[in-house]
């Protein structure tokens, strides 16, 4: 298949279409506007529906309805818009419906800015909406990965009947790279027998719902959800290990930040510092296992979490390290992207203290 030069946001939209997504409900917000624009252009021509909702709240509830009706459906937004969508996301998770939600993160809190950030990590992986639930959260670091993860996300959503979030950032959304649209291996998916499609009496009526008035019933429901989450943790953890074998320091970073760290690794080598990178591809379920493995190794002296936030992923890194090594933090926020020099300087400082 031919490589095409595309903008990140458009690559996500095209990947979704190629994965069979035919319904998109959204509301404009920078820096993800190319996604709805692409969908508005393409979907009507292939028998799909693009609808610009009156708000993010409505958009996610249209997704809720369309997912309930058995469709492959997606919405996209950026940080303040995703906050508004959290109500619907909680309902979708509670009703166990598959859908894909893209968050092209910008700086916050509040209206914040429009430059790239990773400050929605907590919101994406620790809840965001009310109640006990999890999204499956993918953090692509290249446009090619945005394509493959978006394509795979629809299958994963259908397989587990769970909303899946693609957590990008303004940098990934706006940059251009050559991409190839290669479908990941198809998964065997259950039929959507639960969908509200109209009942002619040949089955029980379907009810899509997340209300359990009886506390014992609700507890049972949440326990069932968590059994599913355990299965997802066993099956779906994804990460990249880079230069970790003899590393003195392991850096943890995802998305845009991890790309910068890869440059830092080469620069540090010239100074005799061996830097390894563990890059979570799934932020939930989080790859605790490789972090724990390297925390046990003698050659690894310390960990460093590099983020475009004020230290959110570091909490998961610390859970993985489990006190066996010190975990340092370097982060920029507000839409500031750390430079390789910034990160290298931080690594030099940390290693000075260690040696």
């Amino acid at each position, binding site marked *: 298949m031919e490589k095409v030069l595309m903008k990140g946001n458009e690559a996500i939209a095209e990947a979704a279409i190629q994965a069979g997504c035919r319904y998109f409900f959204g509301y404009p917000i920078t820096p993800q506007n190319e996604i709805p624009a692409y969908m508005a252009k393409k979907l009507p021509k292939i028998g799909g529906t693009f609808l610009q*909702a009156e708000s993010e709240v*409505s958009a996610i509830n249209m997704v*809720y309805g369309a997912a*309930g009706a058995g469709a492959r459906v997606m919405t996209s937004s950026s940080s303040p818009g995703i906050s508004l969508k959290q109500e*619907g996301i909680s309902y979708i998770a509670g009703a166990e419906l598959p859908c894909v939600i893209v968050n092209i993160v910008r700086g916050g809190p509040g209206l914040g800015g429009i430059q790239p950030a990773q400050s929605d990590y907590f919101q994406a992986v620790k809840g965001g909406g009310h109640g006990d639930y999890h999204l499956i959260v993918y953090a692509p670091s290249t446009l090619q990965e945005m394509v493959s993860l978006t394509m795979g996300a629809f299958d994963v959503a259908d397989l587990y009947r769970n909303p899946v979030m693609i957590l990008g950032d303004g940098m990934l959304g706006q940059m251009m790279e050559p991409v190839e649209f290669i479908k990941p291996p198809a998964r065997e998916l259950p039929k959507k027998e639960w969908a*509200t499609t109209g009942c002619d009496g040949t089955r029980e009526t379907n009810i899509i719902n997340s209300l359990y008035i009886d506390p014992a019933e609700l507890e049972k429901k949440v326990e069932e959800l968590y059994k599913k989450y355990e299965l997802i943790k066993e099956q779906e953890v994804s990460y990249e290990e880079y230069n970790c074998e003899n590393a003195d320091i392991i850096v943890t970073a995802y998305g845009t930040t991890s790309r910068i760290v890869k440059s830092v690794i080469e620069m540090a080598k010239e100074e005799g510092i061996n830097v390894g990178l563990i890059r979570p591809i799934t932020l939930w379920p989080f790859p605790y296992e490789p972090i724990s493995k390297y925390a046990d190794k003698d050659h690894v002296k310390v960990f460093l979490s590099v983020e475009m936030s004020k230290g959110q992923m570091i909490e998961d890194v610390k859970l993985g390290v489990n006190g066996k090594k010190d975990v340092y933090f370097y982060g920029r926020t507000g839409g500031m992207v750390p430079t390789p020099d910034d990160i290298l300087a931080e690594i030099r400082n940390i290693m000075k203290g260690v040696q």
Partner: protein
Amino acid sequence: MTVVFEKPKALSEVPFHYCPGCTHGIIHRLVAEAIDDLNIQDKAIGVAPVGCSVFAYNYFACDMHEAAHGRAPAVATGIKRVLPDNIVFTYQGDGDLASIGAAEIVHAAARNENITVIFVNNAIYGMTGGQMAPTTLIGQVTTTSPYGRDPKLAGYPIKISEMLATLDGAYYVERVSVHDVKHIKQAKKAIKKAFENQVNNKGFSLIEVLSTCPTNWGMSPSESLDWVKDNMIPVYPLGVKKEGK
């Protein structure tokens, strides 16, 4: 023996939880009768609201989708866009539709979304214990307007049907009441027409049904029916507010 009266097929074999004298039961029945009359039960997909009728998904014998407070028109939009040949309806109270879901209903109407909306207006929040609704009358006492609704403080009642009738997108908007037999018959006709419009792809239809809340109004069921007639209808006049051609 000839059967002269029976439960509509589109209602499940489940007892309602509604308070004595509440007219939700009548309105449920009218919706189910319309579904039976048009023979669309197998195509019908209902969207249940938040509020007293939150369990509507247990009462209608068709596929049902529960929605968050006010979001039923958005959920119905999602369903209808995926399944345009199905008959999608929402059943919403005044707190749900006129307050937190005001944006959703306005824009579903503006899009002429081909759905049927049953809007039950009893001028009070029922399930949460009798608080003021956007439709609460001037001077009406509720737990959150204990001295009577004062428009200087709490604004004026929202006339949803009149408001939606101003939208080019809305196809059919009518206000009915179920306080006596004559009006129940008229309400049935309107509700059936609202579903028929969808079958015929005419677009957005909303029937506002004036309803009672004996429990939170602090009245007997029969006093409540009189209160609808004497106090609600003058503020919320009945009739067709808009009908497309």
